[in-house]
């Protein structure tokens, strides 16, 4: 199997879907001539032309709403947010138009749109450019939320998202763009709503998505040396959540640790914890622990930024605490 980067995987997914379906087009800031701020759309303008690869003015609310309108009128837009931080300006169109139109119209208006881009922290990008807002989008019925951790998942899930008839929020990670992995060639659709066990284990379940999966796997490898077998579950899709896979893992290990990059209070991990305590109450030997980003705006200083983000050590510590509870 060819080994490619997460970036190339996303690029292939868009390219293949645009070749397959004329109605699919890409729109966003710098996606065309500039080849994408993070080069995800490299070469797409050359292949598909300015009709299907559109550089937009800096108007997140406007072009996202435009995308939603285009979707109800028969197109299948992929809207790139240069980063998801800027999606805050478009959130009204995402929540009040995209997520609700099908319902408000009594089923008449489908909104097959994918809104994608990097979320979370980069490197010292500061408070306004380092937010992981998964839980916001997850909160809204009508939206689907995807957040892949590997190149293979990125490609397979993006292709499925483009073919989905609903609004899909597809959250990538700037830090993952350069990571490599095996990706099966051609058609390889990964269904939305299906988690994957990234590493099997029997002592404790660690649930993580996006770049936190790498952190969790790191910790798991280290813990193996201590004889602790960690099962790493990657939901891949955050809404709808594959509770079945998560629950069966927890029912097996009786211990759960949830890792997420974002803020702790009302984070998506809180919902996972609630789901687990509700359905696996009698299986839990210890309270569910969460490892999250610090409850602060992201500081610029490198040393403070490091303190903010979950790392291997903090995950290992949580695993120890959840297991060694008297």
């Amino acid at each position, binding site marked *: 199997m060819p080994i490619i980067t997460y970036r190339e995987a996303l690029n292939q997914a868009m390219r293949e879907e645009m070749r397959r379906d004329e109605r699919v087009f890409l729109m966003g800031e710098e996606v065309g001539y500039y080849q994408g701020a993070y080069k995800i759309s490299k070469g797409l303008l050359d292949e598909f032309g300015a009709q299907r690869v559109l550089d937009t003015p800096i*108007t997140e609310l406007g072009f996202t*709403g435009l995308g*939603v*309108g285009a*979707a109800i009128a028969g*197109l299948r837009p992929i809207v790139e947010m240069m980063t998801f931080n800027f999606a805050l300006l478009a959130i009204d169109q995402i929540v009040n*138009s995209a997520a609700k139109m099908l319902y*408000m*119209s009594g089923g008449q*208006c489908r909104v097959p749109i994918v809104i994608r881009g990097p979320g979370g922290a980069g490197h010292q990008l500061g408070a306004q450019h380092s937010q992981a807002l998964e839980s916001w989008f997850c909160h809204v019925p009508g939206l689907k939320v995807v957040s892949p951790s590997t190149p293979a998942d990125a490609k397979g899930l993006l292709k499925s998202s483009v073919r989905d008839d609903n609004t899909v929020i597809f959250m990538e990670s700037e830090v993952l763009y350069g990571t490599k992995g095996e990706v099966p060639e051609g058609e390889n659709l990964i269904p939305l709503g299906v988690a994957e066990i990234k590493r099997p284990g029997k002592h404790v379940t660690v649930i993580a998505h996006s770049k936190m999966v790498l952190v969790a796997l790191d910790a798991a490898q280290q813990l193996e040396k201590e004889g602790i077998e960690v099962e790493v579950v990657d939901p891949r899709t955050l809404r709808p959540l594959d509770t079945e896979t998560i629950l069966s893992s927890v029912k097996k290990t009786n211990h759960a640790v949830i890792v997420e990059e974002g803020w702790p209070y009302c984070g998506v991990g809180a919902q996972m914890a609630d789901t687990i305590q509700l359905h696996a109450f009698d299986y839990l030997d210890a309270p569910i622990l969460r490892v999250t980003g610090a409850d602060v705006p992201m500081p610029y200083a490198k040393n403070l930024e490091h303190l903010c983000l979950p790392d291997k050590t903090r995950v290992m510590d949580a695993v120890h605490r959840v297991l060694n509870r008297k």
Partner: protein
Amino acid sequence: MESSNTAVSAANGTEEHVVEHSGPTQEERARRTEPAVLKNLLEQMLLVRRFEERAAELYTLGKIGGFCHLYIGQEAVGIGAISTLHKDDYILVSYREHGHALARGVDPGEIMAELYGKQSGVSEGKGGSMHLFDKGRGFLGGHGIVGGQIPLATGVAFAAKYLKQPRVTLCFFGEAAVNIGSFHESLNLAALWKLPVVYICENNRFGMGTPIERSSALYDLSQKALGYNMARAQVDGMDVLAVRDVMAEAVERARNENAPTLIEARTYRFMGHSMSDPVHGHYRTKVEVEEHKRHDPIKIFTNTLESLGLITQEEVEEMDRKVKEIVEDAVAFSERSDDPHPSQLHTDVYTP
């Protein structure tokens, strides 16, 4: 040029809210128009007026809930504008859209049933007064967030151009919506990308209780087009034929040149902002409202047609009886329709 204040003097110089009738009179326009078309326009205006008068009663009776925004007084704008469309064209409106839906030929019974919240409503009772949808007729809502429909309409126009369909999109919004970011971002996009859309600002002087003088630094709203290099027009929104003529030009421009237009129609709202708001009070006097009612677009148009001998008083009364019957049928239909089945609660959140 380095520094110039010309803008300051220029813009609000013209006497406020008075449209210069450099154009022909309604009589002149009527003479150039098919009698059948004229009668149809009048009938539509009457239908909208009667439909909403009835809706107002039903609202006070508790048959209709939520927010209910009436179009009474503004009928000439929507009806004149929509009368220029082809059947494949698109329409997007704010929450004040009953009149536009009726003008588009959406079934009155299904509209009334939607106001009732019945399964047989255009939006299956899930949308309500603010969210009427009839996709088959290109009627794409009914939107409740001020300005929200403007980017959407721009996208609908984008799709038509992308798919090489000769479809024009009409986007209606109020004068207060002009101040919101969506308007600004959308008009630039439409002008930049040359999209087949016509933006119709229905300037009824008020955003709820705020007159334009307290919400906008500019009163001649068509002038906003200067900021986007866009064609513009201002028209007397109480004259259904003037609206129709201006619109014909704009629709033509959209269909044949993929060029957008911003049209400001000067009109007036005879009722309160919504059924929960007062007709007059802190924000405008009874006298002001009465004054404007003398320019009732239906009265004006009826007089024109009568004075030209194109219609008799009897015919008008007959027309009125007819539309009232249509409205009563719509009410009866709504009354006998069922509430949505409880299972409907969870459908349409995602596609099946």
